[in-house]
């Protein structure tokens, strides 16, 4: 239950299928085809209802089970607010860092040819294939007290593990492919000609980016940012390992939900979950607007 809210958009993240929906044409009107269509509609509706709608209803009803006052209390609770702040901070940090990184990496891999390009691209996809828990462990083994940078960090009084920097690092790690993944195909398809043409007319690097490259990628960039933010807000595994669950200090919203739930404070857990649901819905709306603008 604790991961319910993140799950809803995590499923969406896997593909960008919505945009290709327009390309599907209605097939010939044959009885057999129509029959299959309705069966498929039924199956998919049932699946979505069980997997998505039902859990969402459960979250909302449980959150409001003890009345509005209890819900309000859980939401404006000091630790909840702190967790929300940390979650938003980590998300903003991850989005900022990954936008810059995604821009650089996608530009590099689409406009320049060098040995090891494929390996580079494959490495960027690692967070997609690796379990977030392992990502968290990797950071502990690197930056923790027993880790190979532990001595150095201790000597300089820098805390990463069980502190906010660790939470931010873990969030960045699990979300860094998103912006790259959205930008790369767009940049790759554009080719180098327009940039070369502008350069031959004497335009500098920044002018070329601002006037030629950016107008081409802005919707894909925004889309990548939205996906990245969605994932960052809901991240549980990696953050859970590295945060140390310090209430009011290193607890993010998803971790806070888990703690409340484990304390049998079910109403509060669902109330806090509903915050994540609201964020998810906002992101979903933003995503659809962007998708529609992207053509």
């Amino acid at each position, binding site marked *: 239950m604790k991961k319910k809210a993140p799950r809803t958009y995590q499923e969406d993240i896997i593909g960008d299928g919505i945009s290709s929906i327009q390309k599907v044409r209605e097939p010939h009107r044959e009885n057999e085809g129509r029959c299959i269509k309705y069966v498929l509609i039924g199956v998919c509706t049932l699946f979505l209802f069980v997997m998505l709608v039902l859990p969402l209803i459960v979250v909302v009803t449980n959150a409001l089970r003890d009345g509005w006052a209890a819900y309000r209390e859980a939401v404006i609770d000091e630790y909840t607010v702190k967790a929300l702040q940390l979650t938003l901070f980590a998300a903003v940090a991850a989005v900022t860092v990954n936008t810059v990184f995604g821009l650089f990496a996608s530009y590099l891999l689409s406009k320049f040819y060098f040995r090891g390009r494929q390996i580079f691209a494959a490495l960027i996809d690692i967070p997609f294939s690796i379990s977030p828990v392992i990502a968290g462990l990797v950071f502990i083994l690197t930056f923790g007290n027993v880790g190979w940078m532990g001595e150095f960090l201790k000597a300089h009084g820098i805390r990463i593990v069980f502190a906010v920097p660790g939470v931010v690092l873990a969030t960045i790690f699990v979300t860094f492919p998103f912006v790259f993944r959205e930008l790369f195909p767009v940049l790759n398809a554009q080719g180098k*000609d*327009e940039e*070369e*043409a*502008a*350069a*031959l*007319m*004497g*335009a500098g690097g920044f*002018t070329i980016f601002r*006037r*030629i490259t950016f*107008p*081409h990628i802005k919707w894909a960039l925004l889309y990548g940012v939205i996906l990245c933010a969605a994932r960052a807000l809901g991240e549980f595994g990696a953050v859970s390992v590295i945060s140390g669950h310090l209430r009011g200090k290193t607890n993010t919203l998803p971790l806070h939900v888990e703690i409340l739930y484990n304390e049998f404070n079910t109403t509060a857990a669902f109330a806090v979950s509903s915050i994540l649901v609201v964020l998810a819905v906002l992101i979903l709306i933003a995503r659809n607007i962007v998708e529609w603008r992207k053509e």
Partner: protein
Amino acid sequence: MYVQMEHIYKTFDGFHASSDVSFGVEKGQLAALLGPSGSGKTTILRMIAGLDRPDSGDIMIDGMRVNDLPGSRRGIGFVFQNYALFRYMTVADNIAFGLEVQKKSKKEIRGRVDELLELVSMQDLGKRYPHQLSGGQRQRVAFARALAPNPHLLLLDEPFAAIDAKVRRELRTWLKEMIRRVGITSIFVTHDQEEAMEVADAIIITNLGRVEQIGTPDEICLHPQTEFVADFIDAARYEALAAAKSCEEW
């Protein structure tokens, strides 16, 4: 010679794109770089433009060695194979871009854009976007855009490749007349013998990264110096004969 290539060598990952390429193009001439695909003609054009660097050899434009000069300071206009129009800018903004980069005054830019739109007979289409134009119109915009900053040398990479076979001949005549009227030294790349014969004053035939022969269309047609040129032109002659034309008519 306005453009002079001297002993140019260029390799890409062990592939010899240019081996000892030397030729010259006189001021005011319209020259064709002609050869089969993979013969290294586009590489030569890109090196003149400064988009690629030769491994060795000298590129001279107007008596000056330009190897170390960026393309933007070589006084050239470039028409890309697929025109590379800026797709998020209108036709007028496309043409104005090079002038804006040079920080020309708004008034001057507008005057020059109008002048060029008129030159390519597209006065009414300045507010269109590239995707709203036909192939021929796009070529005209690319041509106008390349000419906007008043270059002394115009380079065109397969200018007719992206055009329907039907209108290609018509556009060929148009482009040739345009270049004559502007009086700009031009070099264009093509793999189509007939195109080179019909449009160019001088032809440079390339094969496997080498220059096979340099000459006027007549010289090349009547006195091919290598077996490759004879074969290559023969093929063209058959094609032309099929179109009821003979070599002498070119």
